[in-house]
């Protein structure tokens, strides 16, 4: 078993809700959940479990102190009111959900895209994690990605357009999880192409005949 489903599986969902995922994987989940109502409802349910478990926890060191209440009260006045960040045009806000927008320095059309393969452009996203790879990929209509496998786990979330992989079509908000054994070759929709977020635990390996030759040169 390698390829997974159109919405996040229960293991991934629990890992995101409990806080066990890395920052890049959390970014992929936050993006998926922003776009997929069904997964968002599951996430709410898991948070409610966290809330109930928290409520049932026994207090630690109950009577002997005020848990720093006076300190905290003295700090309250100075706290600024949190403002929602703005500054994106509808080119971006119609396509990219809020958690992912926080990682973009500018609108989608003015990002420094880099051509990584024929018909494939990439914008590499900086996160606090040095491992793996987080990027937006823009794939031209009908263009296929070189066939590849992964050294680790890969999560793809579709932001715009769609792609076909095997016999499954992935559309806006869908999430695909691929593990080490998965060997796949996504093909972007023939009309609209595809814009997606990819998060990799480890670099991909090209497996096609030509791909193997390119392996030392290409990363995507």
């Amino acid at each position, binding site marked *: 078993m390698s390829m997974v489903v159109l919405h996040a599986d229960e293991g991934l969902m629990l890992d995101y809700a409990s*806080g066990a995922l890395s920052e890049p994987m959390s970014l992929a989940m936050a993006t998926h959940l*922003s776009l997929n109502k069904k997964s968002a*409802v599951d996430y709410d349910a898991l948070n409610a479990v966290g809330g*109930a478990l928290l409520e049932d926890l026994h207090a*630690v060191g109950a009577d002997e102190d005020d848990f720093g209440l006076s300190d905290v009260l003295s700090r309250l006045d100075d706290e600024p009111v949190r403002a929602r960040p703005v500054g994106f045009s509808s080119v971006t806000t119609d396509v990219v*959900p809020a*958690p992912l927008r926080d990682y973009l320095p500018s609108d989608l059309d003015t990002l420094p895209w880099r051509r990584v393969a024929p018909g494939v452009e990439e914008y590499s996203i900086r996160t606090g994690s040095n491992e793996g790879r987080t990027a937006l990929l823009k794939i031209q209509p009908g263009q296929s990605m070189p066939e590849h496998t992964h050294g680790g786990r890969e999560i793809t979330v579709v932001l715009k357009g769609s792609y076909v992989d095997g016999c499954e079509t992935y559309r806006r908000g869908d999430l695909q999880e691929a593990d080490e054994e998965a060997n796949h070759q996504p093909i972007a929709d023939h009309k609209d192409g595809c814009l997606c977020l990819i998060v990799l635990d480890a670099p991909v390996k090209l497996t096609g005949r030509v791909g193997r030759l390119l392996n030392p040169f290409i990363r995507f």
Partner: protein
Amino acid sequence: MTAVAKMTKVGTLDSQKGPHLMAPRPAYKLADKPTSDHLCTLVERIANHRDRAAFEELYRHFAPRLKAYGIRAGADPITAEELAQEAMIMVWRKAGYFDRRKATVSTWLFTIVRNKRIDLLRRQNRPELDADDVMAMTEPEATQDEIMASQQSDAIVRQSLSILPEDQKRVLTMAFFEEKSHSQIAEDLSLPLGTVKSRIRLAMNRL
């Protein structure tokens, strides 16, 4: 889920302040065990009036639990108390974002302290979804039932948790308190990954 859908629709803020005709008064004293409704009102008082007395009451209820959460997550007592304090300061700052139609105060606080823990203990950012954005981004097929489903009261979830089979509950507590991924949990319990996943799925269906 059906029981939840039958819950009374939450009205305006003013109607919450009136006597609760539908629900009988709890037998215990309010100060000992605040109702879910009362906790919501406290957060709303902070949001609307910067009410310090409301903040104090919330603090006395939650700070010990938040500290206990930090200790369960492996922090020393001093760091755990710092975590509790930072989480409560977020309550003060973000009270305006709280929406009783979307979550209970315990659930909201769980998400705050979890994200603070990642920030404080792991020094990592936590990409989090924005509830308003979810509504804006998803197709308008979110039914009233689905919205109601996120209003599960503490009582219902806690009751469901208490009757959950031990093996399912164990997976949940290991995940939420010990910061273990489901694959680590499978390893620790010497169980196949599929078994852990099906326990999570079973638990989610029950809740």
